[in-house]
């Protein structure tokens, strides 16, 4: 559980259960989702999912979105990588296997968000854009926001090519002539830049590649990697 709040459900799955409908067997995925979400008190058929395409598009989810992407990938919200809502009982979901999932929660306005941030989305500022959207729509103050960082590949393992130096000059580390990208640092800067308090950021420092026995890692497993689900819902 990322945040301990009685008004909130907030959780990330672990392996071996694959949660993605764009990879693996539909039957297994739906059964896995049903089992995992039932433990959280969520009906898997009400899930709100996006067709994550490493964009910076943010969607305000309402009751009419419930069930989108719950049973088929095709019905998921198109070209979206961040979901926000201030409605109760709308379970937002993102799927990851190395990319960073960010949980956003403002207890003052009772609003939430969930972001899927790989390097492309991070470069486009998807996390910052989600917070700006929460400010605009819910009148959130970034200083009131609590942020949870889900498991992702960390700078210890995220080796990239030298071309990333031009994209992320401050978040690339050179070790033994190899470049490593710090996805968390990129997103942390976006958060702090908007006024989120450092003390309100919860980072459990889990690397999906180092902890591959417990988490899926696309880098480590390649195309056979399943996906974890991160879910957040206001009760």
């Amino acid at each position: 559980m990322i945040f301990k709040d009685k008004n909130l459900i907030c959780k990330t799955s672990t392996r071996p259960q694959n949660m993605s409908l764009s990879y693996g067997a539909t039957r297994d995925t739906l059964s896995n989702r049903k089992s995992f979400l039932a433990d959280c008190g969520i009906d898997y058929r009400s899930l709100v999912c996006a067709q994550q395409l490493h964009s910076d598009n943010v969607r305000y989810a309402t009751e009419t979105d419930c069930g989108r992407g719950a049973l088929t990938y095709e019905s998921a919200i198109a070209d979206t990588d961040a979901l926000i809502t201030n409605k109760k009982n709308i379970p937002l979901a993102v799927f990851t296997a190395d990319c960073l999932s960010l949980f956003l929660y403002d207890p003052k306005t009772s609003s939430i968000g969930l972001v899927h941030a790989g390097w492309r989305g991070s470069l486009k500022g998807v996390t910052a854009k989600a917070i700006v959207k929460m400010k605009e729509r819910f009148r959130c103050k970034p200083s009131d926001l609590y942020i949870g960082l889900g498991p992702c590949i960390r700078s210890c393992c995220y080796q990239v090519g030298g071309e990333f130096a031009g994209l992320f000059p401050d978040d690339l580390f050179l070790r033994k002539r190899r470049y490593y990208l710090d996805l968390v640092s990129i997103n942390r800067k976006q958060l702090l830049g908007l006024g989120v308090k450092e003390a309100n950021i919860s980072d459990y420092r889990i690397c999906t590649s180092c902890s591959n026995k417990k988490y899926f890692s696309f880098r480590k497993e390649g195309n056979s990697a399943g996906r974890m689900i991160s879910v957040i819902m206001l009760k």
Partner: protein
Amino acid sequence: MSVHNSNAEFIRNSLSGLGQALEVSQLAQDGQEKGISFKINILVEDPTIIFDTCAEFGRIKSVKVQERS
């Protein structure tokens, strides 16, 4: 799905209470294949219940979920 010890009527009876517009059709046999293959169509709120029930009869070879518009 592929089954060894069931027939269409048994499958139909087992699934009929779980959803609507149930169709159970036996597929032409491939000479190499053991058992009998059926194609099942059914309208349900929770497809996982159908998966679990069908798994008791035999092997589910493929699944296609479509949402009603």
